[in-house]
Every structure is written in C-alpha cells, then in structure tokens.
C-alpha cells in the first residue's frame, strides 16, 4: 500500500485550494459581457454599486459561481460518505436515487403548492431524499442473502427511474413539463444571494459534522468487522452518515437540480491521491467537487453563448466514462 505523507497531503490541499481560487476567478471573469480583468478585481474587492460592470460581477456571476462551489462540495461529500458507510464504491446520490427522490417531492410541491417559499422547497426536498434513502435501505436489509453493493446500485437506479417517470407524469398532468425539465437537468444560473445565505451554513455545518465522524467512517470503509473490533458503533455511524449525506444532497438539489456523478467521481480521485482517511478525504473531496462544478458551469455557458447547456449534462459527459471504468473494475470482484 502506498504511504501518504503528511507533507504530500498538505501540498495537495494547497494545490486544490489554489486551483479552486483560480477556477473561480476565471469563471467570474468571463461571461456573455466582456469585462476587463481589472474591473473584475475591483468589483470583487472594491465593490462600487453604481457601476454596471461591478453589478454584473456582483449580482450575476459571483452568486452563480459560489452556488457551483457550494453544491459541488455538497454533492461530492455526500458521495464520499455514502461510499464509506455503505462500502459501495459506486454510491452517488444521483445514482442511488436520492436526488430523484428530492426532485420528485419538489415536483409535487410545484404541482400542489406553487409559490412555496424557498425554505419550504428545501424542506420538501429533504423529505423526498430521506424517504428514498430509507426505502432503498429497508429494501436492502430485508433481502435474503448478502446485500451486494452492486445490487444496491441497480436498485437505486431503478427507484430513480420510477421516480423520474412519476415526476414526468406529474409535470405533464399539471403542465409543468418545461419548468421541470430544465430544472431536472440542473443548473446554478438562478442562484442568488438569498439562496446562498440559506444553504451555505447548512452545507458547511454538515461537512464539518462529516469530518467529525471521519475516523469511524474510515474504519467502516475498511470493513464492517474491522470497525466493530475497533469499537465503532457501526449502526449509529451508518445512520448519522446517511443523514448527513441526505442533508447535503437534498439542499443541493433544491438549489441546483439533480446533478449526478459528481459524488461518484470526486471521492475516487481524492482517495487515489490522499488515501482512505476520511478526515482528510472529506474536506479534500469538497475542494475537488467545487472545482469540478465551477468548471462544468463555466463550460455550460461558454460552449455556445448566450445559450446555456445543462450543467448536469456537462458533468455526465465526464462522469459516465468514469462510471464505466469503475463498473468494469468493480465487476471483476463479482
């Protein structure tokens, strides 16, 4: 096994933080309107609310980029936790149907109670995510024989397919199809400061909590028996871990739509670079996830301006080959 030195870890963290800053700066600097780098700099650090260019940066681009950062962190940490506590290398809130559950309950909200407040939507998003997770876990634990991670993945995908189909039905019946379709595809274009004020504390607290239980998660990811021998209350950690994952996925879905594959790809890369220690893995995944989504969002609006592509599609273009690679690799252990 490769050894992961402390120095190397620090260096990787510094590199990730720097590349996140650079990515954010680039994403803020370029857009439909040409704005010189100096005024970008000035807009961020000496904001003058009477200048249009400053307003564009401050009111349109910054919230959007910060939205990508926060949701990227949330999705990738959710994925990392799920992979750890379920010992399923293919776990991702999108693939396991958690995002679809959140999206489904938001669809119901749109249909039954239009004009619900932002907090209300986030709340229902949680409920949907939690219910789906519980359903999949209960389904899994009531199974005869061993619950393999692959079977759990397939079950999640099918639950997602059913929920997606139902959401479509609701959307068509209530004439929401266009509203919902775009939202399903995901996007951070509509994020504003108010959204950020709501979700940033939730996401950061949840990530902090996840780091706090990083040690037992690490033991669990090494194997149930090892964890029990080391005195970990596996049942409790599993429940707490999934709860955190659901909070993260639910709040992100409410802001940015159901973006899959971030939570799958990022933790794997992080694990390869820094090893299996979740106390390190979780914050590092958060940084990498933020970088990935900032770039995905940047790409989605720069490919064919002023039209914007769905950010979920952008991520899927990267995530799917990775998933195939993992599926092939993990498949050998079948």
């Amino acid at each position, binding site marked *: 096994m490769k050894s992961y030195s402390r120095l190397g870890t620090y260096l990787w963290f510094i590199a990730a933080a720097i590349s996140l800053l650079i990515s954010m700066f680039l994403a803020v600097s370029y857009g439909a309107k040409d704005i010189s780098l100096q005024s970008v700099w000035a807009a961020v650090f000496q904001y003058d609310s009477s200048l249009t260019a400053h307003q564009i940066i401050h009111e349109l681009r910054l919230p959007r980029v910060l939205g990508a950062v926060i949701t990227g962190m949330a999705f990738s940490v959710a994925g990392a936790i799920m992979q750890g506590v379920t010992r399923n290398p293919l776990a991702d809130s999108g693939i396991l149907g958690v995002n679809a559950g959140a999206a489904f309950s938001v669809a119901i909200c749109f249909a039954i109670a239009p004009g619900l407040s932002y907090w209300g939507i986030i709340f229902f998003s949680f409920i949907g995510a939690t219910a789906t997770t519980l359903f999949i876990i209960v389904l899994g634990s009531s199974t005869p024989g061993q619950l393999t991670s692959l079977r759990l993945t*397939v079950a999640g995908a099918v639950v997602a397919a059913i929920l997606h189909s139902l959401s479509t039905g609701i959307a068509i019946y209530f004439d929401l199809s266009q509203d919902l379709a775009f939202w399903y595809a995901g996007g951070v274009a509509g994020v504003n400061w108010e959204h950020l004020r709501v979700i940033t504390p939730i996401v950061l607290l949840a990530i902090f909590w996840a780091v706090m239980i990083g040690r037992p998660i690490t033991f669990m990811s090494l194997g149930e028996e090892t964890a029990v021998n080391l005195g970990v209350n596996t049942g409790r950690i599993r429940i707490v871990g999934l709860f955190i994952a659901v909070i993260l996925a639910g709040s992100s879905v409410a802001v940015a739509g159901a973006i899959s594959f971030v939570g799958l790809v990022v933790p794997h890369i992080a694990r390869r670079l820094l090893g299996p220690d979740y106390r390190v893995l979780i914050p590092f995944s958060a940084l990498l996830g933020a970088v990935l989504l900032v770039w995905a969002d940047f790409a989605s609006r720069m490919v064919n301006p002023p039209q914007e*592509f769905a950010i*979920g599609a952008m991520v899927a*273009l990267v995530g799917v080959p990775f998933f195939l690679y993992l599926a092939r690799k993990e498949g050998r252990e079948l």
Partner: protein
Amino acid sequence: MNAHKEILVRKRFRRAVAFSLIFSLVAVIVVLISLNTGSISLSPASVWQTMMGYGTNEEKMILFDYRLPRIIITMLAGIGLGVSGAAFQGTTRNALADPGILGINTGAALGLIIFVSFFRTMEGPLSLLIPIFTFAGGTLSAFIIFLFAYDRHRGILPIRLILVGIAVAAGISAVTLILSLKLDEETYSFAARWLAGSVWGRDWIHVWSLLPWVALLVPFIYSRSQTLDILSLGDEIAHSLGSHVTRERLLLLGTAVALTCASVSVAGGIGFIGLVAPHIAKRLTGPQHRYFLPVAALIGLVILVTADTIGRSIFRPNAIPAGVVVALVGGPYFLYLLFKSKG
C-alpha cells in the same frame, strides 16, 4: 422414462395453449375497451358492425382513420417489446434484462432526436425512416454496453451488464438533453412526451413503418426458440451441444435490438414491459421459449394497450404517457425480482 417425458411435454404444450387462449381473450377485451375510448362513444355493437362493414360513414372514419391505426401500433409495439425483452433475457442469461433499463431505449431516443433535429418533422413519408434512425441509435448504445460488459473469460456478466447499461443510458441521455434543449418549444415538448413513453403514432403510415419489423423479427425470434433455450442454459452447455454460441447470440441480440428500436420509435421510450411480460409468461408456462414466447407477446400487448387506455382516459384532458403507467407497475416488479434472486 420416455413416456413420462412425453406426458410432461404434452402437459406443457397444453398449458401453453391454454394460456395463449386466455390471454388472446384478454387482449380482445382490452382492445375492444380501448376502441371505445375517445371523444365520441361507440358501443361495442356498433364497433362490431363497423368492423364487418355495416357502419355509417362517420363510424367508419372514427374506427378506421382515427382509432384503429393507433391501437394497431400499440398492439404491435407491445408485442415487439415483450418478445424482444424475452430475447434479451435469454441471450444474456440475465433475468433482469430489459431494453429500457439496459439503455437501448435511450440510444433509440438519441436517434429520434437526431432525426427530429435534422428533418424537423415526424409526419409524412419521411416517418418511414424513423425506425432506421432509432435502430442506429439503439445499436450504438447496445454496442457500447456489450463492449464494456463483456469479459474475455466469463462472457457477458449479468449484473455488470445492467450497471453498464445504467451508465450508458445516463451518458446518452446527457447528449440527448443537449440536443433537445436546442429544439423549439413545440418540438421539445413533443420529445419530452416521447421520452416518457407516449404512443404518438396515429396514422396508417406509422403502422406501415412498424409492421414489417414486427412481422419479420418476431417470427424469426420464435423460430430460434430452441437456440434461446440452449443459450439460456449457459455458455458451457451451449458449447457442448454444438451451438455456435457467439454467432447465434449476436444474431439474436441484433434482432432484439432492432425489434426494440422499431417498437420504441412509434410508441416512445417505454421501459419495463420487456421485463415483466416474459417473466409472467415464464412463470405460467415454464422456461421453454417456444411455449412462453407467444404468451409473452400477448402479455406485452395487453399491458401496453391497457396502460395507453388508462393514460388517455382517466387523466383527461391531459393524457399521461403510457410509459408512466407502465413504470408504476413494472418498476416495483423489477425491484421484487432483483431482491428475490440470490447473488
């Protein structure tokens, strides 16, 4: 011993015939109900009279111009999906194989979106080309899936096949999404309905574009019942029985993909029928393809016609795509199968 076997065979044959008859009857009833669904109500008696050629001009138009083409399309697509699902399950030795879950439908959807983006129409003689486009898309996705799910030493690995199918489906729908967001609103809302599985064909031309595929490929698959029986026993036994395993499997897979794509092209991306129909049929008439294939075809027909009728009639004035109704029933069934099977 031989006598005993013969009795068994005869018993199976009788069961198969009995269930075929039962489901034919159910199919007739469902189709009749469906024929009665529409803005103008026609009594079963007048439907019958019109069929026999004694209806009024108006009744003839309602029946022959408006309702019949649509129902025939639904029936054909149901048959096609049921039989192709059975063929997928047989050739891949995977009880959970379903063209919808495997991502064949999504490939076909990509083909359709490309067609719409190019020709900007779904009607007229050009629509005869639609199955070819969907077939190309479906084949592409099938090719990628099998490429990734194939293991040199162990052949196609069942659960990996599904896993890869899910991923490929996600990837292809990403591309489809990118393309479909460029469509204008009207075409887009059509495409969205199509993806959710709504039977949209309503003209005879759509019947003609689907019929040849079903009429040729279903008998072909049926004629290979024995091969399917052997393939589903596993590669080793198949080899020892002298079957050209790989060639036969590819041939049957290609046929199943083609049949799926043709059905999907006029009926929309409907999943789960290819899963449920063969399973029920197998449970009723045993595992031999020559007995359960016809029953699977009939069950596929019954499910799709029923789902379409429910979707159109209960939720008026906004019709719900048949695919949504099917997923509501088929999805849980899939989960049941997944967790019932061991390992």
